[in-house]
């Protein structure tokens, strides 16, 4: 029996909704699939997803981008600086440009001068942190409503879209609490409820990236620079140019992620990114250096973060534990059937521990949800490492004319 990609996707979605549905029924917690949760989760997913997408662009061309966090910081600063003077859209553009400058710097350092990519990326993180703090003191201290560590409020906003005609009946259906149907309605309603235009743009960027990198000649050449630049070079691909383009686009996207944060918070503030560039890097690995998986990872991490934050009586974290347990057990079943016994048994044990924890404890510290992105990435790395396939020449220095 051959399963097409579409059928596989639909069944994964179905199983996912079923798991959420089971958890919601057992814990009687409507939060898990409500419109507010989903719409907020998408909001949190945007900066993480953009950082992940930025990582894909850079690493697909063979440049490891540890500097994502720094480029995001530049983006938050640019958005704050331009945003308070000329409005949110100008802020968006400035954030993207500032991030792009960070990307260009990484390209100059690592592609032209062959600096170790990890070191160059780390330097960009340090540089962005220091530079923005310095500039904040310089530019914002005397601005009305600003301070040493934050910009004045950004004027104007990026519109959000709510389609009541679709959202309201779906929300009503969600509130009925029917198994599976209500949860599907709840998840869908989140897409039509207070959806930021930037979320839509982000989704389009994911689709556009998937198309550009995997369906066009440009994308093939760009990816060849990350898989085997020496072979690509011998065939006449301008590897250096492609690397430059990819890393700069990476910076632009990370800058957009940062700008989104500033605009959503209506100010720039030192330390606002709070490590989201690194979480983006983790989603990229989780997503196997591909847009689909990275997007799914970002939504998952956004969802987990939302559940932690909107949780007033600690019910959600408990729900998350059960969701985690069900997912882990499901993976265990697949692994055992596909004859990967030892890993399968490991997963089964982990699942059993999680189920046990769910049954025994009634209250979990919210920090469990905070570390979830990292634990998930570790689990993926530990178990799926045979299936993960980073670009073959990711991180390798390239000199034109050399052979390997």
């Amino acid at each position, binding site marked *: 029996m051959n399963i097409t990609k579409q059928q596989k996707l639909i069944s994964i979605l179905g199983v996912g909704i079923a798991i959420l549905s089971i958890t919601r029924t057992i814990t009687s917690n409507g939060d898990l699939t409500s419109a507010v949760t989903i719409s907020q989760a998408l909001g949190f997913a945007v900066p993480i997803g953009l950082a992940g997408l930025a990582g894909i662009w850079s690493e697909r061309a063979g440049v490891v981008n540890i500097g994502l966090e720094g480029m995001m910081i530049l983006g938050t600063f640019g958005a704050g600086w331009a945003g308070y003077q000329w409005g949110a859209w100008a802020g968006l553009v400035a954030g993207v440009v500032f991030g792009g400058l960070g990307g260009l710097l990484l390209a100059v350092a690592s592609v032209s001068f062959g600096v170790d990519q990890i070191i160059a990326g780390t*330097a960009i993180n340090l*540089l962005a942190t220091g530079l923005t703090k310095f500039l904040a003191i310089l530019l914002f201290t005397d601005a009305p409503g*600003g301070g040493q560590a934050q910009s004045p409020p950004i004027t104007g906003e990026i519109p959000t879209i709510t389609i009541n005609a679709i959202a309201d009946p779906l929300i009503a259906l969600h509130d009925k609490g029917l198994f599976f149907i209500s949860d599907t309605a709840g998840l869908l309603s989140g897409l039509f409820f207070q959806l930021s235009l930037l979320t839509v743009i982000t989704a389009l960027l994911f689709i556009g990236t998937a198309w550009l990198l995997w369906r066009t000649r440009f994308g093939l050449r760009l990816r060849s620079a990350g898989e085997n630049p020496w072979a690509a070079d011998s065939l006449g691909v301008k590897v250096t140019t492609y690397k430059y383009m990819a890393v700069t686009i990476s910076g632009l996207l990370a800058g957009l992620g940062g700008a989104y944060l500033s605009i959503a918070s209506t*100010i720039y*503030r030192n330390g606002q990114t709070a490590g989201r560039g690194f979480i983006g890097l983790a989603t990229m690995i989780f997503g196997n250096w591909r847009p689909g998986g990275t997007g799914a990872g970002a939504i998952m991490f956004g969802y987990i*973060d939302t559940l932690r*934050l*909107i949780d*007033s009586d600690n019910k959600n974290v408990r729900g998350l534990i059960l969701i985690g347990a069900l997912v882990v057990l499901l993976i265990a079943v697949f692994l055992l059937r596909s004859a990967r016994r030892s890993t399968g048994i490991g997963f089964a044990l982990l699942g059993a521990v999680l189920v046990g924890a769910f049954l025994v404890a009634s209250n979990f510290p919210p920090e469990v949800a905070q570390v979830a992105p990292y634990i998930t990435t570790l689990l993926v790395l530990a178990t799926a490492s045979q299936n993960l396939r980073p670009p073959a020449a990711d991180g390798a220095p390239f000199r034109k004319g050399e052979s390997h």
Partner: protein
Amino acid sequence: MLKGVKIASVLAAAALVLTGCSKSDNGAAATTAPATSAAPAVKVGMAYDQDGKGDGSFNDAAYAGLSKAQADLGVEIKEVNSGSSATDASRQELLTLLATDGYNPVIAVGFAYSTALAATAAQFPDTTFAIVDSVVDAPNVGSLVFAAEQGSYLVGVIAASASKTGHIGFIGGMEIDLIKAFEAGFDQGAKSVNPSIKIDSKYMGAAGDNTAWNVPDKAKAASAAMIGKGADVIYAAAGGSGLGMFQAIKEAGAGHWAIGVDSDQYNVPSLADYKDFILTSMLKRVDVAVYDVIKGVVDGAPLTGVQNFDLAKDGVGYSSSNPAVADFAAAADAAAAAIKDGTVTVATK
């Protein structure tokens, strides 16, 4: 490759220099000579934590006390920031620098300085030190602590009186005892008005997670969720994250109230957009404490030991700059009187 190493080191050096700038660049600019004074002026060294002034809250309150002392007492001042990647060692360097340069008193703003200040104070027994929000046990250190739970009790009374839904919320920054005292006082105050009131509570980060003070987007999500479940008054003690709570309250519209913290946030310029929704603020008079310390040194009677700024000393309180709070002032003032005369004891946990 050698060329590459050079570039990397230049980049790293640039980053270090720029980070260094942000720590103390304003120090030089802020050093001002006193206008009139024959005797050598008292030199006050002030070390802020993280990024210092401009938070519209805690650090700005400390600065208010400092600038008042500058105007009234003619002292010379120098301000430094620890920066957000500060360690105990780097904080200690800052304090040592101030003490070596003859600044006396040296005031450290924030509990994060505890370890560094204890070490520095031992090295400079002739300098008077002060630390805000923490207790350092040394003969030359004044520990300026605030009965934040008492002030929070008052705004709890106001919140419960103002709430029409019988449901209020609390947003905390980092989940540490210092902030938990705000929540405990708030809860107790609210329950003294309405024993069956529902109080939601959420912290932005665990102890040690410095991002907790800088994530307004997360505070907004948490507040919006509380509002969605029926909360109509929210109190935030979360530093820069508190902005998100104001945004959520404003989006919820009339009938919802925000309660600010530390400074009188109704009058903070960067929060002017949210002014109409800020019912009151729990005032932590860091300005009073800082001023008192400086005045003590100027008068030759330095304040040392644990200085508890409570309601009785006007070290905490609530602001009445929004006229809307007048409806609840009687209840709050009665509660304040009860705390002062000892009828009510406010728990800190």
